[in-house]
């Protein structure tokens, strides 16, 4: 198991925006560095002006000046990925030992095909139990307010199932 405090994360816009909406963006401070491609940086700033100024999170804006890898470009076209998602995957190619965070299903599918370790907002929030940043009760409370407080869409039945499973697992 690698030391999470030394792990780098690469973030697409979704998880930063959703964690900020849910007021748990600080969970990203568990990483050594959080790399954000310039296109994603722009996108996040447009929606959540202050999110990337969080004092405790080692966000680093990365400017990508090379065109994307050929395979990545082909897959991005086939899966209709946007420029931010393409940059996120390009950056992941340069930092293969990092975790990649996105909430976009197509971007995530492509990332998995390319062998990246990829997760999303829900994973980051639930991980906080394992890492000791939040109690299971707090995580359940945060998951419960996703439909009202966040633009992250999860099918209600799926969200209910996750909450029920966590409650059973942690005897809440």
């Amino acid at each position, binding site marked *: 198991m690698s030391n999470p405090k030394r792990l780098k994360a690469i973030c697409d816009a979704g998880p930063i925006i959703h964690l900020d909406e849910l007021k748990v963006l600080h969970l990203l401070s568990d990483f050594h560095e959080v790399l954000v491609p310039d296109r994603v940086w722009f996108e996040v700033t447009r929606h959540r002006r202050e999110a990337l100024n969080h004092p405790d999170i080692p966000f680093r804006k990365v400017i990508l000046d090379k065109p994307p890898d050929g395979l990545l470009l082909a897959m991005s076209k086939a899966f209709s990925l946007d420029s931010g998602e393409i940059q996120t995957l390009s950056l992941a190619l340069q930092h293969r030992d990092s975790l990649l965070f996105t909430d976009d299903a197509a971007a995530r599918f492509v990332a998995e095909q390319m062998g990246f370790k990829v*997760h999303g907002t829900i994973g980051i929030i*639930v991980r906080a139990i394992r890492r000791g940043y939040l109690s299971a009760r707090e995580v359940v409370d945060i998951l419960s307010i996703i439909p009202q407080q966040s633009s992250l869409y999860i099918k209600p039945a799926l969200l209910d199932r996750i909450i029920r499973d966590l409650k059973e697992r942690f005897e809440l």
Partner: protein
Amino acid sequence: METMQIELPEQLYKAVNALVKNGWFRDENEVLCEAVRKFIESFRPSLIEDFILNDVEWGLHGDE
């Protein structure tokens, strides 16, 4: 744009040809691109569900 060579069963090949001949698509390439896109779209909801459940497991038991 990348090139991919594929083998199609004859019936499927005829169906693709018919779509082009009848003017629905410019060429065979366009039919196949659209078919792949539709396939991906139709699987998106179940993909999302799998990803989220996988996230919960990683969140609880992942070793990073």
